[in-house]
């Protein structure tokens, strides 16, 4: 994984990435949390399909080629629930 200069991984990059994920016309993800770690960004959250996770990674590689990204993005399950909540 490529290490990037610390001046590239500052507050502004973190903010730009958060906005890019929401505002990019193809991605439009607001549910992904961007956390800055030493020399890398960690993305956490869930999306509906594996293709959407790949879209996010592709977008970041395109716009921030020097930033190392660790994607901890899951795919939300869509099975029926196992029980119902009783509300009285």
């Amino acid at each position, binding site marked *: 994984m490529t290490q990037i200069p610390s001046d590239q991984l500052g507050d502004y990059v973190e903010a730009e990435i958060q906005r890019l994920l929401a505002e990019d016309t193809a991605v439009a993800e607001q549910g992904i949390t961007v956390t800055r770690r030493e020399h890398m960004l960690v993305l956490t*959250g*869930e999306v*509906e399909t594996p293709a959407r996770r790949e879209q996010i990674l592709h977008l970041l590689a395109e716009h921030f080629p020097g930033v190392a990204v660790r994607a901890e993005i899951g795919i*939300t399950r*869509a*099975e029926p*629930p196992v029980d*119902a909540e009783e509300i*009285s």
Partner: protein
Amino acid sequence: MMRIAAVGDVHMDADVVGRFRPALELLPDLADVLLLAGDLTRHGTAAEARHVATEFGGLGLPVIAVLGNHDHHCDEVPGVIDELTRAGIQVLEGTGTVIDTGHGRLGVAGAKGFGGGFAGRCASEFGEPEMKAFVRTTARIADRLGTTLRELDCDVRVALTHYAPVPDTLTGEPPEIYPFLGSYLLGQAIDSAPTALAVHGHAHAGCERGLTPGGVRVRNVAHPVIRHAYALFHINGAEPVEPPREFAASH
């Protein structure tokens, strides 16, 4: 007993079609109604709404929806609503509907809602025109939601929103963004009527359960929160929750 299924934030596009359908086809045996808590589409296009219609239409039970912020993004709200309506999905915005479930009359009042924050950390209608417009938007939506809830002629009332009416169900989200996730004004509206349950979406990193100051149960049914195709709620006894004393006196 009334049986309610609910999910929000399904963010449909062509790539999601078919993911929910196997679980949804079980619903006629499990629920009296399915509530969709907004962000049904990814960008708010009519084309995406057609995918919502394909996935959530024709299920053999009433489907009631509110829109979310994503459903507004491409400024195609009339087209989105048209696609959903043609599939038999009823879209509420400051409006309500009553369903005869066979176990009693279930009333649903719905509104997208909006932001502003919660007690002690909320926006005020003060200062720049943009700030005042922001708060007024939420106040107007909440006012209409409260009126609709109070006017429903039914045995059990449920409030359906996209934005959160309480901070409880936002736990897990960064506190700094709470004002963009909901407003106490929605909770106040819900507490102004004998509401049995309030469901919302929007907060993907939030948690499932909360309570309004007036004691109404609030459930965050955003898909990434419930991690199933939908959540199921059984409302027993059909006993309406009494409104808090201050609202009973003023309304």
